[in-house]
């Protein structure tokens, strides 16, 4: 009986436990990591990636993939940097709103053109990258100093990085949306059986557009958080965030096939991936072995966090 209960708890909260175990392991090797300052600085550094992970979760819950998030983050960073001399802080809502609109357009096109999300978002990746290149002429764009919103994102309140606080707020909102609203219910059901949901009268184009709008909006926020740290934007500034974001989602236990998982799990998955990276780096392994160690540890983490009872056929 006890065993059963423990096992059930483990299965439900696998990701949290894995996070704690890895945290324990890493902090044994480097006790300094548990200091508030250290944690905070890690969270601050990784806030852009975490918000991308949060956003990327929604299309994946539908069973879709948004490959354009990293390119969108770069495009948003570039646009925000170009607009900030004119618009100042207002450039942030403008850029995030614009990104959400572009994301929504992607979602809508998937339904209208009936082209798989993989293709649409891959095409969008190319387009966003090209546009960002064109806008900047492949040059670096600096942020005008003294714009409060970037200063805000780059600083702390209550002793915690504002960027990370923003990640928490966004993730909390999405988690509540998924749990308490009709839209959230539709998103999960969509991932489980798109056709049945369609025939149940759900506005599937709307649901899909919403999911892609949030992933693009989050990506734009991520790009902006990133330049609030770097103070420079370039057409490829966030380009490498795509795979880590997808890894984070999967490590958190969200199934690529859709219908299973959640925003908070993804956030935890992202934290696990960050800690694994920290652990591998401070392990002092030669650089050639670090990739191997990272790959294998991630695999073990996913093996522990996947709730196999909920996934029908594993593909």
């Amino acid at each position, binding site marked *: 009986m006890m065993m059963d209960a423990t096992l059930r708890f483990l299965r439900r909260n696998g990701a949290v436990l894995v996070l704690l175990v890895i945290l324990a392991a890493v902090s044994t090797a480097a006790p300094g990591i548990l200091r508030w300052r250290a944690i905070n600085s890690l969270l601050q550094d990784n806030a852009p990636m975490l918000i991308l992970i949060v956003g990327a979760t929604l299309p994946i819950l539908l069973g879709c993939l948004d490959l354009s998030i990293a390119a969108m983050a770069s495009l948003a960073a570039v646009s925000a940097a170009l607009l900030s001399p004119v618009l100042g802080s207002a450039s942030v809502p403008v850029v995030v709103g614009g990104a959400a609109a572009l994301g929504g357009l992607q979602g809508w096109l998937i339904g209208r053109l009936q082209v798989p999300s993989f293709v649409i978002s891959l095409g969008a990746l190319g387009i966003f990258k090209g546009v960002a290149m064109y806008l900047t002429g492949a040059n670096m764009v600096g942020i005008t100093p003294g714009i409060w919103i970037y200063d805000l994102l780059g600083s702390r309140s209550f002793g915690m990085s504002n960027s990370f606080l923003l990640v928490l707020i966004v993730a909390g909102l999405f988690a509540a949306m998924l749990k308490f*609203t009709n839209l959230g219910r539709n998103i999960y059901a969509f991932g489980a059986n798109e056709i049945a949901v*369609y*025939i149940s009268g759900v506005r599937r184009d709307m649901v899909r557009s919403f999911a892609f709008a949030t992933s693009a909006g989050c990506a734009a926020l991520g790009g902006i958080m990133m330049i609030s740290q770097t103070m420079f934007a370039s057409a490829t500034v966030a380009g490498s965030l795509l795979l880590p974001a997808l890894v984070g989602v999967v490590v958190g236990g969200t199934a690529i096939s859709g219908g299973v998982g959640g925003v908070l799990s993804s956030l935890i998955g992202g934290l696990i991936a960050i800690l694994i990276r920290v652990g591998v780096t401070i392990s002092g392994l030669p650089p050639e072995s670090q990739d191997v160690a990272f790959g294998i540890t991630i695999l073990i983490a996913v093996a522990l966090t996947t709730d196999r009872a909920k996934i029908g056929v594993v593909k």
Partner: protein
Amino acid sequence: MTAFSLEGISKRFGEVTALDNVSLSLNEGEVLGLIGQNGSGKSTIMKVMAGLHRPDSGVVKVGGRAVQLRSPAEAALAGIGLVHQEQSLIQALSVAENLFLDKPAGSTWAGVYRWNSLRDRAKAQLDKVELDIDPFTPVSALSFGQRQMVELAKVLSLEELVHGHLVILFDEPTAVLNPPEIQALFGQIRRIKHRSSVVFVSHRMDEILDISDRVYVMSDGRNVATRDRDAVNPDELYELMVGRQRVNRKDRKPREAHIGAEPALTLNHVTVPGEIEDISLKLAPGEILGLIGVQGSGAETILRTVFGMADDWQGKIEYFGAPLDIDTPAQAVAKGIGYLPAERKTEGMIRNTSVSENVAITYGWQHGRGAGLISRAKERGMIEGWVRKLAIKTPSIAHRIDNLSGGNQQKVVLSKWLFGKTLKVLMLDHPTRGLDPGARSDLFAVIRELADQGLAILLVGDTLDEVLTLSDSIIVMKDGRVSARIEGVQAAPPSEEDLVKAMV
């Protein structure tokens, strides 16, 4: 002589006991009719016999010897074959490949297909079921009924593969067949009787009594009675499995008074290229309009067109006097139109989710807190109400729908339409497919009640009997056109012969 027997078989799924100490013996050359309510364990027995489930306890004997059937392939070697309740052909493959999917012996050499030999062997099987198609047709190109015949041919190919006695299991094979196809199936069953025993599951009493030698009745995972065919009548069987008296259709009083004067739905010359042509009909609030026709006659297309699912259609549809201008089911639902699809697995149930999510998907929000917020507590009350009313057999409403029996899944899918506050027209495509007789009459009562409350109902029925029982008027479809219209059905029921004549 006993060909096959189960002794004291039990099978549990988590907290559900699907089979509770069941024994069954099957004589050589016998057809055993297996009946029982939805969720009583019929499919589970069949799956145990076919090696798909391993029993928790009990003994399986083939020809008097205790055996362990670890997989369908082992069962096939022992001469046991199963035609599934849900169709299980692979669409991407050809008919021939499907026929020999589970028994490749001879159709491949070192993993390479021998197409000519495969074709000949497939042709021979298809001839048995009198299906005149190219063995290399992809399954995706076949009609539903044809696929069922392929399933049959697939099982019958055991005849050539196994030398001993065969045991052939049919799980609700007739649910998707039309009368001539059912007769063809029965012909096959009679033909193979000389060397096989058959277990036949159906919810239709007349079929059971037509084909079976003995009837085996299940209730709640237990065998409650076994009767020789000659010693039972339908009413007794009904009482055995449902536990109450059968209601007679004649009891129903005409209800014309409730039918509204203004039509809810009017179709004027509606055409869907290649499927239906020039369909006109009227449906009033409170009216039940039955549509019948053989598979492919277009009745389903009418429903789907009204529901905004046709890709391309011409004509005019009016909804309470105004033109119906919709493009998606969502818009249809917003206007108050509901649709229960026939294909439960792919279009009806949302798999991998709970019973409650399946029920609440469409109208849950109407019982929420507004602003798109849902209230699971309020929903629970309503859902549990329908679960009780439709006698849905599920441990709880949080149970996964995939783990319910076929009939209970159907009831869950149906109930999502039943608690909408705004529903005005409900279209039902084979709503009783897979329901047991008790559930069917429960559902009939619900449908009538809904009509009495003023809902307009468009019904594509499973059987003539069903349409005759429920409908106020009937439209008979043939090759995409209306071939007969009958008004005042309850007052002056047409004869079944007339209807069949109009259908074919």
